[in-house]
């Protein structure tokens, strides 16, 4: 934990995030001038109505979308840091304990059977269905992984149960896609690849509050997660109650990831690679990884979203395709070049 290094890295990440966000609000299917951005804010401050089309696009579509990307990216990356630390396993990502597959099932259920069951809470129906799906699947994983004697769930049994429950819910999604009519099946596919295009201010507010609160809370457990690197027994010998820590970290992750996924769909890979990129740069101290993960996650997702909008403009790609398409080569190159030793 080199303090001066991490300060420099933090500052650099912050500058990059600001630049990329500025690019991201400006460019897209419609290019927005600095003048128009200024006007839009003037209207907001004066409380007058925006009449100009570009200013409205900026205020109601572009800005919430970019900010949504920042918070979702932060949530996914920090979720990855927490899960890798908790499971003491470098191949883990936040969806591993069933959260994203459950959310995907909830969303698919809404798309295909929502009308049949008269599920209608307006624009909140999809996020609520997805969030419930994510929480139910995670609870199921946690419940099923408890051993009969003693009620403690070992990390390995959590991991295995998570993989099994993921497979179960994904087959559920597969079944729903199979019985779906064409437009419904397309909705499922799109949602599973993730998109920020539906971002709106009310949803953004929820994601922002939940993510910020969760990240601040998880910083409090950074030291305990560090001790866990020695193993569960050793961490306990250093005075940490493993069972309590496990429940707290799982809860933080589930709420943060389920809420983010509920609004933007399943976005893979960010939660896996961001923690590794940061470990390559500055080591494995979780205090560093949590806050810098939030920044780098935000950068990666914002940049991916910008790419997704520009590459086929005016059409756009699902963001999940971009995060994997760019993320995988970058990750592999770094993995081979650096001295990242396990």
């Amino acid at each position, binding site marked *: 934990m080199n303090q001066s290094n991490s300060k420099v890295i933090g500052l650099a990440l912050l500058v990059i995030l600001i630049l990329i966000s500025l690019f991201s609000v400006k460019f897209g299917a419609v290019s927005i001038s600095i003048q128009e951005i200024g006007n839009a804010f003037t209207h907001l401050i004066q409380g007058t109505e925006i009449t100009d089309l570009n200013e409205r696009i900026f205020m109601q579509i572009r800005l919430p979308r970019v900010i949504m990307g920042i918070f979702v990216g932060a949530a996914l990356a920090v979720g990855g840091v927490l899960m*890798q630390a908790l499971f003491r396993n*470098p191949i883990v990502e936040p969806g591993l304990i069933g959260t994203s597959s459950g959310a995907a099932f909830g969303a698919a259920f809404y798309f295909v059977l929502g009308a049949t069951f008269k599920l209608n809470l307006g624009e909140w129906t999809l996020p609520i269905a997805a969030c419930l799906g994510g929480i139910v699947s995670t609870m199921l994983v946690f419940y099923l992984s408890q051993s009969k004697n003693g009620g403690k769930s070992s990390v390995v049994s959590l991991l295995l149960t998570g993989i099994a429950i993921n497979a179960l819910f994904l087959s559920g999604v597969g079944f729903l896609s199979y019985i779906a009519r064409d437009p419904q099946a397309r909705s499922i596919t799109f949602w599973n690849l993730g998109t920020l295009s539906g971002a709106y201010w009310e949803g953004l507010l929820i994601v922002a509050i939940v993510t910020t609160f969760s990240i601040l809370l998880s910083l409090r457990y950074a030291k305990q997660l560090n001790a866990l*690197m020695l193993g569960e027994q050793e961490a*306990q*010998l250093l*005075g940490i109650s493993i069972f309590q820590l496990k429940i707290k970290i799982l809860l933080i992750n589930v709420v943060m990831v389920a809420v983010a996924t509920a609004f933007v769909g399943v976005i893979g890979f960010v939660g896996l690679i961001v923690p590794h990129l940061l470990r390559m740069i500055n080591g494995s101290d979780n205090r560093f990884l949590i806050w810098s993960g939030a920044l780098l996650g935000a950068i990666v997702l914002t940049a991916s979203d910008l790419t997704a909008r520009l590459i086929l403009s005016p059409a756009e790609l699902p963001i999940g395709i971009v995060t994997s398409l760019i993320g995988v080569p970058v990750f592999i190159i770094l993995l081979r070049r650096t001295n990242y*030793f396990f």
Partner: protein
Amino acid sequence: MIQLANLSLKKSGKNLIDDVSLKFNHGKMHLILGPNGAGKSTLVKLMSGELKPNIGQVLIDGQELEKTSFKDQAKYRAVLSQNIELSFPLRVSEVVMMGRFPHYESSPKPLDLEICEESMKLFRVDEMRNRNYLTLSGGEKQRVQFARVFAQIWTPLPGRSRLLLLDELLTFLDIYYQYDLMQKIRDFMVKNEDLTVIGVVHDMNIAAKFADTILLLKDAKVFAFGETKNTLNASTIYQVFQVKVEQYFEVK
């Protein structure tokens, strides 16, 4: 001071520890010897609270171990376990700092940094402080773990004696470091009289040279416990290990 009262642990019908009652005094080095499967590590785990006995109690300074929180235990008791593997790369200095975790809340205080520094110097790992722990050899890793464990109980606590539990402490170490480390533990004990050291070793010569008391375990039971000269001789070694040995020098 740690006292074991009628301690027994049974698992699937087999006695792992069978009615052990004894007292380890502070200011002394107690070494445990016994054949594989005699219950040496199990006994250490019962004293560290990692395992709970079916019957009996562990009393530390007269207080029941089960009634003390993990957090409080970690302040006065450090344990060196076998085979510690890190899940992610960390610098040597970061691993040693983990020993101070029970003593600070979120970031280390100057005292914690100072203690880590001294402990790293004591075990001669200060020159590898920035190296990745995962790239070290087995013996180097073991010395880093020593530095971490000692950092945890470096300073005395008001109203409590300190306890150091060392399971298979000499694994991976060459003969120089085996004697060097044992001597360092003894020197540290002389300066810190409230410390009780309990270790598991296999080498009879080392046990004879460094121990104040020897505990011989056989089939989950105490075979002999007491001063080295009364417990460790050709006859007891034959009865416990079924190996014939000759004694070349006097035990103090």
